[in-house]
């Protein structure tokens, strides 16, 4: 089985910021992603106790390396200041590189 190297970008942020992330992805012509609700703690305090709107969401995007930098740059620029958000990048191997 041959695995091709791609990047996995993981963004953990407030649930109400999910829309912003998806829009940035769309702008960079990325439509594939996976999301799920999570709780957490960070600089902006415990998130996930009260209203659903105050939970976090994780957005995971498998993508080729070439788009990564631009997307992370845009997220950093437009969202780091105002939202509870953390992101990280990792190396993963996929089978069908044409899907991403």
């Amino acid at each position, binding site marked *: 089985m041959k695995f091709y190297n791609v990047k996995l970008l993981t963004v953990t942020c407030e649930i109400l910021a999910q829309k912003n992330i998806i829009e940035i992805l769309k702008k960079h012509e990325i439509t594939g992603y996976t999301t799920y609700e999570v709780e957490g703690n960070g600089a902006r305090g415990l998130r996930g106790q009260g209203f*659903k709107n105050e939970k976090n969401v994780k957005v995971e995007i498998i993508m080729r390396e070439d788009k990564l930098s631009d997307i992370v740059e845009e997220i950093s620029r437009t969202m780091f200041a105002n939202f509870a958000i953390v992101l990280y990048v990792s190396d993963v191997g996929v089978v069908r590189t044409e899907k991403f």
Partner: protein
Amino acid sequence: MEILQLIQANLLTPIILFFLFGIIAARIKSDLKIPEAISEFLPIYLLAAIGLHGGIEMRNAGFENMLIPMVVAIGISLLFTLNHYQILRRLGKFNLFDSYALASTYGAVGAVTFSVGLSFLKNQGVTSEGYLAAILAVLEPVSFIMAIFLTNIAVAKQIRAKKQSFTNDDVSDIEMGLQETKTKLSQVLHESITGKAIVILLGCIVIGYIIGEEGFTSIKIVFDGMFTGAIVIFMIEMGIIAGQRLDDLKKVGIFLISFAIIMPTFNGVIGVLVATAIGLSLGGAVMFGLLLASASFIAAPAILRHAIPEAKPSLYITSALGITFPYNIIILLPIMFVVSSIAHDVEGSIDLFNYITQDWT
């Protein structure tokens, strides 16, 4: 004094007791929690019940008289929002974003507060005009839209000012700024009008109006019989969330705490008097006042995080849910009820007077 007795009696109703219980549970760090799916469903249910009830009433009583109260409510709500902004920005020294966010939070309305108000009136054996549910629906977005509009104008101005200090020929940039403002505004408009609260409320008003008392029979046990029981369960969760936020009161500061009590009192009493003046019933005037007194804490974050992300949610959620909501349902409701009773008595005597004079002429 009558007000104190009424407050005391109100304190001992299930709704208030369950709310206080929730606060205590949170303070002693109990792991008690209403599961998310339930506490997400309950506001939908409450709004559906309010809407159906309102629609049925409107079918029974007609809604010709709705127009004036509706227009008055919108007008006052906008005025109040502007007033909040001035007070917060000038006296409270909050920044532009926080000021607008807070101003609109208090200009907007709270559906949960409205439910509690209906139950309070039921307890007093007093009815209110059904079309108030429609006013609730319309007021939801009004003050957000204005606040967001003004925020964007202000931001665009700032951008323009900044730009002009560098160069003179960037009209296109200003246009761009205004353009972006427009897009954002239309997005927010769409979001707040299609927000679940308004959609379910308006939808159920229409359904209630169509089906009437008779069509309601088969679903009455769910949407009427269980109403107060459902509120009571929701109050546990509201109490818990409010209790968890009490620690944040320090961050909120003494100015905002005072604002969160004085402003609703002012807005609410004005509301009761105006409503009485334009002819609403004793109960209707209380609900009208409550609309103006209440602050939004469920819909607000969903809209404001997108529209004014720079504003701190810890300010507007904490003050609306942690201070104003308990104050409104425990203390202000009885106050407004007494004010409305007096106002209607006075009016009654005036009417009586008119009647007598009419009779004599």
